[in-house]
């Protein structure tokens, strides 16, 4: 009888690199060799397992058994027990999510499930192998264009019907964005993938790029075909070393398979992709600042309108889409818009990739249907507050979002519901703050961030961020804070109305929400 080959996937990303995964992988390989298991065990790399695991983690197929928080001395146990005898090593398995849910009073049967659309390959395939991407159904959306003869208009209709909204934070309908650019007549058009992830507390774009880079390339090809663009750019922040390396390799491999370049799969459609590295500027996540940066200039946002859809890169019609948005495209084309509507809410179909960070037991990324509540995310999937301290606050959507207290826990998370509560879903960052943190100090740190990152082009933001930082330092526990607080709130109103871009405009969210929800700390 032929022995079944066991596949061990080892998660290689910042989280595991920090814990020493390189050494772990090396020793694992040596031990496989020493035990003469090379023919029956295949070890390869994969992306993140999200909140499912902690520290160095692996998954073994068949069976998909997860092992978490591994140390080098655990390797022998895994090889002797699981690989040789076929008995899973119970004590190395992470606490299953169903247990975390029931521990916090949720019925695992009724709770929302992790639905992996965007992350379906992350933690399952080797991101450096185009063949593994193709085997798992990758580039089927591009093939569908070639084989079923889908016209650009058909693609735009599918995306419009799907109700997909931009996952960078603004929630603008993607199909509509594409249609605007498709209707422009121009000799050149561009597709830009915005991978300048800089919103504090967010790592989902990095983990998507590291875990499944071809998905982004496929999304860009389809976007290019739909709007009539022949050139695409992936703009990745300069600090994301592994993302850059994996995307460079993915682009190269896609050219080799003729999925990029001239006459892709005989469709007559030409599409090229180039990678551009940022050089450290939060504001470049704003689409027009990003365009300026690609053009080799300072990343100063432009005055809108005109929007990039009409006049973008080199003043040509340009679609700028976030990484997560583009990662949704291929599954929608393959499975249809109706399928997409089976996830999430009516106005916000699909899923959202949340980044769970701060004082939480299981930090990491998790993909859940739109409309999930913070209570489910934090106390269910995230396992609750670290060290069993009390929950004080949640900073939702990144530093530019609002800070909520416990009373917000049951609000459904989608673009519109969060907005109604005076906040932003933003990047989907969920920063959990326990009751050890002083909110004045926290606000000071948030304002320091914006003061540092204001590009200085427009006066309300340049001076406003500096003044807010000066003012927050004047707040004290015994003083007359009311005047300072009202001055700060007024200043954020002015900045909201008069700043050129969302950087200055959005300060109204953290500042006002902290004073509103944690006012007792400023008395």
């Amino acid at each position, binding site marked *: 009888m032929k022995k079944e080959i066991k596949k061990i996937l080892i998660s290689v990303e*910042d989280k595991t690199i920090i814990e020493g995964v390189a050494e772990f992988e090396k020793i694992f390989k040596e031990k496989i060799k020493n035990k003469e298991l090379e023919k029956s065990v295949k070890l390869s790399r994969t992306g993140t397992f999200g909140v499912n695991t902690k520290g160095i983690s692996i998954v073994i197929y068949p069976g998909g058994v997860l092992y978490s928080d591994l140390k080098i001395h655990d390797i022998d146990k895994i090889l002797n027990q699981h690989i040789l005898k076929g008995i899973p090593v119970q004590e190395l398995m992470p606490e299953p999510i169903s247990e975390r849910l029931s521990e916090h009073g949720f019925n695992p049967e009724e709770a929302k499930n992790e639905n992996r659309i965007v992350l379906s390959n992350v933690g399952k395939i080797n991101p450096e192998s185009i063949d593994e991407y193709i085997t798992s159904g990758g580039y089927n959306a591009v093939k569908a264009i070639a084989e079923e003869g889908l016209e650009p208009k058909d693609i735009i209709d599918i995306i419009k019907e799907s109700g997909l909204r931009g996952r960078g934070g603004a929630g603008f309908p993607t199909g509509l964005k594409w249609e605007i650019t498709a209707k422009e007549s121009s000799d050149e058009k561009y597709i830009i993938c915005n991978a300048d992830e800089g919103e504090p507390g967010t*790592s989902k774009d990095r983990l998507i790029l590291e875990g499944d880079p071809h998905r982004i390339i496929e999304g860009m090809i389809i976007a290019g075909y739909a709007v009539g663009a022949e050139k695409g750019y992936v703009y990745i922040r300069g*600090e994301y070393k592994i993302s850059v390396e994996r995307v460079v390799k993915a682009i190269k491999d896609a050219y080799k398979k003729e999925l990029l370049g001239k006459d892709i799969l005989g469709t007559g459609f030409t599409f090229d992709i180039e990678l551009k590295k940022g*050089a*450290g500027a939060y504001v470049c996540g704003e689409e027009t600042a990003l365009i300026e940066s690609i053009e*080799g200039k300072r990343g100063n946002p432009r005055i809108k309108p005109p929007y990039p859809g009409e006049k973008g890169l080199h003043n040509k019609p340009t679609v700028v889409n976030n990484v997560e948005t583009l990662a949704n495209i291929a599954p929608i084309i393959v499975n249809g818009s109706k399928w997409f509507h089976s996830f999430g809410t009516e106005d916000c179909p699909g899923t959202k990739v949340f980044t*769970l960070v701060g004082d939480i037991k299981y930090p*990491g990324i998790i993909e859940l249907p739109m409309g999930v509540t913070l209570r489910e995310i934090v106390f269910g999937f995230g396992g609750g507050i670290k060290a069993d301290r009390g929950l004080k606050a949640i900073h939702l959507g990144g530093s530019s979002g609002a800070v909520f207290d416990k009373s917000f826990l049951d609000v459904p998370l989608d673009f519109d519901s969060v907005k109604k509560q005076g906040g932003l879903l933003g990047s989907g960052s969920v920063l959990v703050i326990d009751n050890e943190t002083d909110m004045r100090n926290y606000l000071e740190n948030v304002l320091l961030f914006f003061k540092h*990152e204001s590009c200085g082009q427009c006066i309300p933001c340049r001076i406003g961020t500096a003044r807010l930082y000066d003012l927050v330092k004047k707040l004290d526990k015994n003083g007359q804070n009311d005047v300072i607080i009202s001055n700060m709130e007024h200043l954020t109103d002015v900045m909201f109305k008069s700043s050129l871009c969302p950087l200055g405009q959005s300060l109204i969210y953290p500042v006002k929400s902290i004073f509103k929800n944690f006012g007792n700390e400023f008395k």
Partner: protein
Amino acid sequence: MNVDKILKRYNSDRENLIQALHDIQDNTEGNYLRTGDLKKAADYFHMSLSEINGVVEFYSMFSKKPRGKYIIRVCQSPPCYIKGAFNVLGELKNLLGIDLNDTTKDKLFTLETTSCLGACDEAPVMSVNNIIYGKLNTEKIKNIIKHYREEKRGK
């Protein structure tokens, strides 16, 4: 490496400026951009020196001052802040005997701060030449610095 050689890897479209600047800086001893090299880059991309300075000074990854072999960048954004990022900075200042944005006398380390590095689940974090280190505490920081000091001595 010769700057003219680096520049020739790129066509002279301004679109390539930032990529070329990364390349020049990475290949310059002291991890910085020399005025002479910026003049050459300005000529190559058909810009004035002041315009190219404007670009260089906008981005936090570029420096016009010579820096150490290893650039330590400590994250100061809110997720790292609540996990004690300011202690990390203080420890490093003490350990290296330098202030923020300074370089050690042996030209080994430069201490900088950075905004969110997107590795918040390991907060507090810092990067050394873009390699991320997380869950930092006194012990870990000491070991990391020791590791780089030994690497310098060719161990």
